């Protein structure tokens, strides 16, 4: 039971962090629960489909189907996260003002919610497809051991949800005036980390081989396989042995998001005063 608990928990842990951040980022916006739940449901469905077609997917693109698929959906999530930050840079202040004025959740921000729901779906799909494949294999195994393993898997999922809850609760204690800055930073780092992950998959597919020398090895300080390492990997994109290309793309993603946020932000002087 313990091995399956740990395997499922490791995947649920990473998805849980991302869902917790999205929940905190969207707190106060009307209907966000439904959007996030929708994202999770889409992710679970997608995970089952991907698990079902693992072998066919793998064979595509000269054997690199899995890597390209992962790189593709991660890239899509990066664009969604970047878009969210740009949208918030433009509308965040009026959103916060409306919330203060109305004293309740506002209806605006549906587009931004959709983008974040996609991010949730991608995270759940990626981690979930491995959970589905693993649990399916366990369920197909001989009787007694199978049931115990499934129970372990279920507990692992519950613990992963706990991680999500703790992340959410921890983030919403941040005072409102800092919340925008903190969540924008978290989202930008999440995006940069996912971009570097996408690069890792392209390198694994042998599609991207430029600048593939390992720049540093900090696995002796913090291994990516440890839980703190995994948390940092998901939150800020920490990699214990990054390639130069991964670092370049990480920095470029951060720079691009910051630049776009600056470009599209509404300067204070030109904003109309509230009536």
């Amino acid at each position: 039971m313990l091995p399956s608990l740990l395997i499922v928990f490791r995947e649920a842990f990473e998805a849980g962090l991302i869902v917790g951040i999205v929940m905190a980022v969207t707190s106060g916006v009307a209907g966000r629960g439904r959007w996030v739940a929708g994202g999770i449901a889409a992710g679970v469905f997608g995970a089952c489909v991907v698990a079902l077609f693992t072998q066919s997917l793998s064979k595509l693109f000269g054997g690199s189907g899995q890597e390209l698929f992962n790189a593709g959906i991660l890239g899509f999530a990066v664009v969604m996260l970047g878009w969210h930050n740009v949208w918030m840079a433009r509308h965040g202040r009026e959103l916060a003002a409306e919330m203060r004025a109305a004293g309740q959740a506002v209806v605006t921000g549906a587009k931004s919610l959709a983008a974040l729901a996609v991010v949730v779906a991608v995270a759940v799909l990626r981690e979930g497809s491995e959970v589905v494949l693993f649990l399916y294999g366990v369920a197909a195994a001989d009787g007694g051991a199978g049931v115990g393993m499934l129970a372990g898997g279920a507990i692992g999922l519950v613990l992963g949800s706990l991680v999500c809850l703790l992340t959410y609760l921890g983030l919403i204690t941040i005072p409102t005036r800092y919340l925008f800055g903190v969540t924008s930073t978290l989202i930008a780092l999440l995006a940069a980390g996912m971009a570097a992950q996408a690069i890792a998959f392209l390198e694994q597919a042998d599609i991207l081989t430029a600048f593939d020398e390992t720049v540093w090895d900090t696995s002796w300080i913090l291994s990516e396989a440890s839980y703190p390492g995994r948390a940092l990997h998901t939150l800020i994109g920490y990699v214990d042995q990054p390639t130069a290309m991964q670092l370049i793309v990480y920095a470029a993603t951060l720079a691009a998001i910051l630049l776009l946020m600056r470009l599209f932000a509404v300067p204070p002087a030109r904003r109309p005063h509230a009536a």
Partner: protein
Amino acid sequence: MKKDQLAVLLLASVLTASIGLARADETVTLSLTIKDRQFEPVEVHAPAGKPITLHIKNLGSTACEFESNELHVEKVIAAGGEAVVHVRPQQPGRYNFFDDFHRETKGVLVVP
């Protein structure tokens, strides 16, 4: 505009060519199978500084995830399926890999 377009085209061609050259016929191909929760062979060898292509067949009845933290690869292989994993050129050393779904299944890539 025409000069700019030509410059971009030249740059793109050079980049594509260099990527192609970088992946020249230097690749070392190794085969592995997973059966009865074991890698066969448990130990594989490859020369240093050359890209490595691993052909892995999962002869077991459950899915497995071929993973190595040190080689930076992870790939899920369905039951009865097979997969190709590309590994970057490595320095001499021993690199562990395992089945993430069944941690007791382990192997090592030895680069002398």
